């Protein structure tokens, strides 16, 4: 069956749908059995993408055959090995059982899942769409924060697509996606609210960090603007740790008592040193822990990329 996304115009309230993934090459509304067969029942749409007249934000995100095909990769980080390591780790049996045991007791309030720097949105979309199987409950709220405005729009669309694709299963297991805000790390958030924080930081060691705001005035070229946005997504400054260090200093104030964080590090970040410093700075005696829970890219005996889980044992 062809996958479709529903849109609604905010002014005239016109609703329409587009085929985002044909079931075979070239099929669509006129010839796919899922639309032409009167005995085929299609569920009511779970969500509409609200669209404003004159908005050009989504226009560049041409929808075609891949779930992230709307993402403009000239200006938003393309999912790669690091994104997929996060997905693998979050869906591993050890992490799903850890998260379920902390978050999914019957009477517990809805967990808040926040991804910092979601980029194309694949990770946040995956967690939102599969909340029940990953976190043990579908009553979750998910939120993204990204410095790049195009990434904010991309994440919203990627998440809507992922929820739409997952809705074919009988029991809905997806959570509720809130928004992706444009912002600097966790600074817009109220204190101690986040139950799961995910961060794939700009981790590549570079001589300096780019400014969060676009350099200069509005007359810089599109190419310069795009280069700046992409640089923001990978350039990590000294040891590739300058942005991660800022996030770590915010972490104890941002996580809830049951909260945990998944942080991606590469070998050049000195992950063992980072983990030891977290426990020392936050207080191992107060129950703070930092452990590697996922690895990839084994090279000459050391891991190229790893996921560190940071959490506080209930004392």
């Amino acid at each position: 069956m062809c996958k479709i996304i529903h849109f609604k115009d905010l002014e005239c309230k016109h609703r329409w749908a587009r085929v985002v993934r044909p079931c075979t090459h070239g099929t669509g509304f006129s010839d796919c059995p899922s639309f032409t067969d009167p005995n085929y029942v299609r569920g009511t749409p779970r969500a509409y993408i609200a669209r404003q007249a004159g908005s050009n934000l989504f226009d560049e995100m041409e929808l075609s055959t891949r779930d992230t095909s709307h993402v403009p990769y000239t200006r938003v980080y393309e999912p790669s090995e690091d994104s997929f390591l996060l997905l693998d780790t979050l869906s591993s049996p050890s992490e799903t059982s850890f998260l379920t045991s902390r978050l999914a007791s019957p009477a517990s309030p809805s967990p808040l899942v926040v991804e910092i720097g979601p980029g194309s949105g694949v990770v946040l979309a995956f967690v939102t769409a599969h909340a029940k199987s990953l976190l043990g409950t579908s009553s979750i709220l998910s939120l993204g924060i990204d410095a790049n405005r195009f990434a904010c729009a991309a994440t919203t669309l990627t998440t809507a697509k992922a929820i739409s694709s997952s809705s074919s299963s009988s029991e809905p297991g997806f959570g509720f996606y809130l928004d992706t805000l444009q912002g600097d790390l966790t600074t817009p958030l109220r204190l101690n609210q986040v139950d799961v924080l995910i961060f794939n930081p700009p981790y590549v060691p570079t001589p300096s960090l780019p400014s969060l705001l676009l350099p200069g005035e509005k007359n810089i070229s599109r190419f310069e603007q795009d280069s700046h946005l992409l640089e923001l997504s990978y350039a990590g400054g000294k040891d590739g740790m300058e942005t991660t260090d800022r996030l770590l200093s915010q972490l104890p104030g941002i996580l809830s008592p049951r909260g945990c964080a998944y942080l991606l590090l590469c070998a050049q970040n000195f992950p063992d040193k980072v983990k030891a410093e977290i426990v020392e700075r936050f207080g191992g005696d107060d129950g703070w822990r930092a452990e590697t829970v996922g690895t990839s890219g084994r090279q000459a005996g050391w891991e190229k990329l790893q996921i560190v889980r940071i959490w506080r044992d209930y004392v």
Partner: protein
Amino acid sequence: MKVLTLNFLTCAVKSCKSSSDSFPLHPKDAELAKDDVEINPQLLANVLPRLDWNALRTTSTELGFPSLPDQPPSPEDLTADEKMLQELHSLLMETQIMEGKLVCGHCGHEYAIREGIANFLLPSHLV
């Protein structure tokens, strides 16, 4: 930006975090839109206990919605009162601020919302 999201946000200025005036942020010149979202009573029952109810009451009034009760409804109240369930669902999950500003009650800084995306990046003199 959804009304529910506002319940998790404060002013991004560091020195405002400790002030109770920085939460909730106050909508200004807000243009609202309504999405169609399937109602999920279980989700609503699980979300309400973690909200700051007084902040939600303020936001609701400021956006021109009917005033909410003094206390959050219990799961039993929600089961018994379908109208209340529908109204809360509509306010929290369906109502979006598409254009406008969010104003900090402590420092007065205004965060712009354009095309439904709120911008919390601060100008360099406030960082």
